[in-house]
C-alpha cells in the first residue's frame, strides 16, 4: 500500500515538473549548482582555517626533538651514533639531504629513500640486525617509532629548501619509471589504483581535497607537506606511512616497508615535486 502511495506521489510530481516552464527549470538547476558549490568552498575554507589554527605549536616538533636526540645518541650493539650516517651529501650532513632523496647509493648498490637509508645506517653503523631496525616503522600510541622520529628530525633541517631530485644514475631512471607504472596500475578487489583518486582535478575523499599528483603543481603541494603530524592519529607520519596507508585503502597487498615498490613511488613523486620549496614536517587533520 505504501509503495503505491509513493508511486502516485511520484507521478503527480512528474506532472508538476512538466508544467514548469523551461526557464524556471534552468533557474532551479542553476540555483542548486551555486548552492552546492558554495557549500563545498566554505567547507574547504573551514578546513584551511582549521589547519592555520593548528600551525602554531605543531606537535611534530616533539618528534623532531626526539629524533635529534636519537641521531646523536650512541646506540646499538656497536654503541655509535648516527652522526656518521651518509644520507647522500656525505657522512653526517643532514641539512638539505631530504631534498635530494630518494637517490642511488653506491655502497648499497640500490636506490634508497630516507627511511631505507636510516635502516641501512642503523645496520651498518650501529650493528642492529635489519629486522630489529625495521621492527617499528610506524608509531602507535605508546609504542613509538624511532624511524618516524629520525625522519622528523632529518626532514626538518630541509625546510625552506627547494626539492632537487636528480635522475642521473640508470637505476634512478629505472626506479622512476617503475614508480610511474605502479602509480597508474589498477588492480585489487576494487580495481583501484593511485590514479583513481589522484589523476583528476577537484576530487575529494569525504571533505578532504585530493591533489592531482600527475600535475607538477599537485605533486609539489603534496610532496613538500609530508611528513606530517596527523591530528586524528596523534602521530607523526612519514612518507612511507602515507604510501602504506594508500595501499591499504586501495585494498592492495600490504606495501612492505623499505620495498622497491615503496621507493619507486616515492622517487616518482619526489622527482615530480622538483623545484618546490620543502615545507615539512607539516600538520594535517
Amino acid at each position, binding site marked *: 500500500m505504501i509503495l503505491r502511495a509513493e508511486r502516485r506521489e511520484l507521478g503527480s510530481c512528474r506532472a508538476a515538473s512538466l508544467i514548469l516552464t523551461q526557464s524556471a527549470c534552468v533557474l532551479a538547476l542553476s540555483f542548486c549548482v551555486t548552492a552546492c558549490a558554495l557549500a563545498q568552498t566554505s567547507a574547504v575554507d573551514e578546513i584551511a582555517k582549521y589547519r592555520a589554527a593548528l600551525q*602554531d*605549536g605543531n*606537535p611534530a*616538533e*616533539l618528534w623532531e*626533538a*626526539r629524533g635529534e636526540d636519537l641521531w646523536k645518541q650512541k646506540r646499538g650493539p656497536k654503541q655509535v651514533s648516527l652522526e656518521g650516517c651518509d644520507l647522500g651529501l656525505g657522512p653526517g650532513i643532514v641539512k638539505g639531504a631530504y631534498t635530494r632523496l630518494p637517490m642511488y647509493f653506491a655502497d648499497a648498490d640500490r636506490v634508497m629513500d630516507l627511511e631505507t637509508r636510516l635502516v641501512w645506517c642503523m645496520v651498518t653503523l650501529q650493528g642492529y640486525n635489519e629486522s630489529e631496525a625495521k621492527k617499528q616503522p610506524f608509531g602507535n*600510541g*605508546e609504542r613509538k617509532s624511532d624511524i618516524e622520529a629520525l625522519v622528523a628530525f632529518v626532514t626538518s633541517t630541509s625546510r625552506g629548501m627547494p626539492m632537487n631530485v636528480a635522475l642521473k644514475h640508470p637505476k634512478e631512471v629505472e626506479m622512476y619509471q617503475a614508480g610511474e607504472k605502479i602509480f597508474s596500475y589498477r588492480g585489487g578487489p576494487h580495481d583501484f589504483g593511485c590514479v583513481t583518486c589522484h589523476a583528476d582535478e577537484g576530487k575529494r575523499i569525504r571533505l578532504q581535497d585530493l591533489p592531482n599528483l600527475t600535475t607538477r603543481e599537485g605533486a609539489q603541494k603534496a610532496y613538500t607537506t609530508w611528513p606530517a603530524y596527523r591530528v586524528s592519529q*596523534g602521530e607523526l607520519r612519514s612518507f612511507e606511512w602515507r604510501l602504506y596507508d594508500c595501499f591499504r585503502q586501495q585494498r592492495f597487498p600490504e606495501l612492505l616497508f623499505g620495498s622497491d615498490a615503496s621507493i619507486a613511488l616515492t622517487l616518482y613523486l619526489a622527482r615530480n615535486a622538483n623545484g618546490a620549496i620543502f615545507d615539512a614536517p607539516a600538520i594535517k587533520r
Partner: protein
Amino acid sequence: MPDPMKIRATTVGDETEVKVLMSHEMETGQRKDGQGKTIPAWFIQNVSVTWNSKTVLSAQWGTAVAKNPFVSFRFKGGAKGDKITVTWVDNRAEKRTDESMIA
C-alpha cells in the same frame, strides 16, 4: 621519563608570549583497546609556569585537553634572558619540568 617540552618565550613591547608544547598521551578513560577493555584515563592534571620563580600561570586540566597539548599565554613584565620554568604533573604522579630563557 616523559619526553621534554618545547618552550618558546618572546618579549614584544611590554608583553611576553609563552608557548609550550608538551608530549603526553592524554588518555580520556573513554576509549577501549582491541580486547574491549577500557584504557584507563591518563592525563596532565596540574600545570604551572614560573617567571624568575614567580608563578605566572597555574592551571588544572582534565581529560578534555588534546593529546600532545599546546598552551600559549601572555604576561607583563618579562625581559630578555629571564628564566621561564614549566612543570606538569599527571594523574599517575609523573612529572616533568623544563626551562627556557625569554628571547
